[in-house]
């Protein structure tokens, strides 16, 4: 509920740094402001002002406002630029992504959830995955790689890894096995992590997913959870503790962190040179949300033959892929595409041959837009790139 953020909403200084269009670090802060009518309610300061108006009882939720709320990508570019800190807990003082999420939750409670989001959440509730796929697919993956159900190290495939980009999931499993991690896999007991439901405002479904997964993981004896999906990583690592109001009894890492650690120890062995120039897209949920910027770069740079070329906006200042946890892509496809095209142009400007990222959702969004615009780029997820260089 937005009420939880009353203190934070009132503390926005309305200074407007979140509307800066150009600074030494970023060309523009909010991609949504850039690709819409650009009114205040399309970026952080105005969204927080609207939240204040609701809390003060001056304005109410309406279908039109709900449409605007679902244009927020949750990319946290504004939060990054704002930089204000809540001295009570060290967290971001004005976390607009969270504030908008709470407003979405309130709108859902009023029966104002957009139809597409209702359908998505119903699908997740029913099928336990985002795409309405059969959980049997996860059993097939477990069987193919002879993955046990229990173990210290659990691979969390997420929905994308199984129903959209199987290559990413398979590459991750191969890497984990080849490097001696002996991964286990929950298979059909692994439900959607709940990322789309949580950020989409459907806390109930997100909570159901979280509680189920935590129980399944605990039963499986998890000590370390490894995932290649930045959405799953951030949700399990940062949102699950918020949902259960407790610390997790296990460690959550992204495959890039696992690999970077091996690089550090000199234990990652490559058998093939990839003589290509590569550019890396920072996923919002891995970067600004989970603060992982160095690990994927360390891994990419360790691959023999690869030259890493950074896009103009990178790391904390990275542009969003435009997907907005699928919600913006589903509800505002033209807006999402315009934002993705900006990113594709930046990737092309580096002169790179390959565009990689550490999130299947980003890779899918960039691939679709890049191919549509006939950009001369090859799109590959980070685990697949590493697996190729390892000869797996």
């Amino acid at each position: 509920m937005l009420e939880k953020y009353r203190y934070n909403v009132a503390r926005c200084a309305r200074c407007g740094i979140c509307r800066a269009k150009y600074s030494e670090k970023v060309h523009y802060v909010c991609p949504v402001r850039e690709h819409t009518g650009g009114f205040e309610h399309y970026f952080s300061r105005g969204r927080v002002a609207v939240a204040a108006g609701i809390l003060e009882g001056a304005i109410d939720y309406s279908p039109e406002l709900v449409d605007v709320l679902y244009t927020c990508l949750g990319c946290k570019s504004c939060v990054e630029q704002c930089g204000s800190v809540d001295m009570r807990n060290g967290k971001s003082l004005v976390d607009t992504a969270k504030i908008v999420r709470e407003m979405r939750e309130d709108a859902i409670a009023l029966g104002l959830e957009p139809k597409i989001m209702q359908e998505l959440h119903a699908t997740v509730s029913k099928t336990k995955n985002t795409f309405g796929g059969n959980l049997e697919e996860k059993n097939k993956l477990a069987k193919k790689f002879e993955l046990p159900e229990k173990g210290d190290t659990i691979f969390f495939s997420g929905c994308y890894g199984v129903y959209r980009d199987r290559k990413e999931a398979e590459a991750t499993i191969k890497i984990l096995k080849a490097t001696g991690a002996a991964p286990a896999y929950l298979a059909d007991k692994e439900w959607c992590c709940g990322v789309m439901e949580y950020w989409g405002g459907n806390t109930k479904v997100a909570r159901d997913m979280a509680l189920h997964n935590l129980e399944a993981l605990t039963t499986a004896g998890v000590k370390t959870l490894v995932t290649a999906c930045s959405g799953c990583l951030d949700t399990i690592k940062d949102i699950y503790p918020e949902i259960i109001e407790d610390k997790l009894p296990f460690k959550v890492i992204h495959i890039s962190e696992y690999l970077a650690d091996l690089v550090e120890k000199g234990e990652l062995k490559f058998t093939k040179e990839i003589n290509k120039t590569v550019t890396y897209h920072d996923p919002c949920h891995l970067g600004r949300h989970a603060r992982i910027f160095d690990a994927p770069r360390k891994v990419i740079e360790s691959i023999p033959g690869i030259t890493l070329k950074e896009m103009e906006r990178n790391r904390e200042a990275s542009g969003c892929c435009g997907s907005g946890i699928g919600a913006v892509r589903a509800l505002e496809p033209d807006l999402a595409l315009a934002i993705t095209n900006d990113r594709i142009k930046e990737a092309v400007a580096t002169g790179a041959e390959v565009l990689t990222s550490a999130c299947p959702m980003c890779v899918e969004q960039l691939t679709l837009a890049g191919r549509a615009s006939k950009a001369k780029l090859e799109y590959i997820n980070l685990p697949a790139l590493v697996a190729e260089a390892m000869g797996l």
Partner: protein
Amino acid sequence: MNVVRVKEHHPLYSELSVIVGSKYTTDSDFAVWAYSRDSSPVPGKVPGIIVRPGSTEEVSEIIKLANITHTPVIPRGGGASIFGFPAGIPGRSIVIDTTRLDKLIEINEENMTVTAEAGIGVCELGTKLTEKGYYANLVWAPYYADTLGGLIGGVMGGGWSTRTQVVGPNANHILGMKVVTPTGGIIQTGGGPGTNVHRKTTFMRDGGGPDTTGLFIGDGGTFGIKTEITLSIYPLETVAKPRGFLFKSFDDIWSAISKLMAIEPFPYTNLVGLAPNATALFMSDPCWVLLCYTRGYEEEEVTTKIKVVDEVCKAAGGELGSEAIHMQASAAGTGEMYREMGKLASIGMWVFLETHVPKEDLPRLFNKYAELIDQRFEEKGIKEYGGIRMDVMLPVGHGECYLSTNVYWQVNVPEARKKVMEIADEFVNVTINDGLFATTAQRIPAGVTGANWSPSYYEFMRTLKRAMDPNNIINPGHWGL
């Protein structure tokens, strides 16, 4: 919570949509609410409709329509003003959001000028000039939020850069403007192209008749809506050195400041005096601190100037600060200290009580205002709301000083805000009654400023406003007119 379903459009919704396009027109309740306030704690006024025009001609058409229908217009830049957004007529006014007019038109390296649309962000303009090796005298804060037009209209002197203390405010560096007048006419000031029909290049404000450019500086947008602005630019300095000195008392630091500001040429580019209540933010043992930043084009020039600063500060009892203090001087001198204003929210909710004081009055008035604010803090129980204040003083030229008491409070309850605003209102009134100036040209300071004009000057301004804006369309009520 109730759900609002349908709201009638603003009476000019269709006409305005035809002018700027429906994508850039909105009158949704949440949209106008989001435009009701600036970055100050001053209570907001909700406008009737917002438009984001994309050209000077569109601005002109909006103004003509407003005149026909007698609808008030409020121009708005970055929305970063710190003392209240012009009120207009709530529920009816048209807010012209100028931020779509954001093109950098030309950097003219031969004439050392830059021309940009008025809605360009100051940070964007500043960054693009830096990339070319130049600077303009823009603003040190809010660097990321201000627009060029908002800065020039909304701030005393048209903006304050980190070099203002030695080269004067931005007003001294503005060459000309394109302005949409309150009746919808489009004029070009500055004596250059657009003023003299035969002149092709360069601007000279004091040529071609009276200097009308000044009419639009610090006017809060009331005399017209700026759409293009030409400024002088200068090559970036190549050498810069910071210096931080610690002082035991106000008398000691003031002795150093007053001696330094009397020297010609100035041995500093930026000089900031901080009271212990401000240095407590970065020092475990807070004291009076003088931050100096000297820029130049030759190592020898800067070294010589810094030597002068050292001698004056030491003679006044100053102790050379640590490397960390010098870094603070760098942050102040480059503007970094003030740029990321959002971070101020970490310290607390804030209001800046700023004014300009003649040099000879500074010690007396500094103490007077410190006592006044202390007393009000006590009376109103501001400390119970986590209230703190930070006092800052800066010399400006040889004879003026900027003085600011930044008030922060921690508890966001309406009564806290109300009580702090009572102090702020009193401060504006007291300082203007002491013959000082408000630094901003927005709602509250503009009202108090107008109320303190002499009868003859008030009459002159009223005549001017009536002549230029016969329907009182733009910022009605500004300066009490």
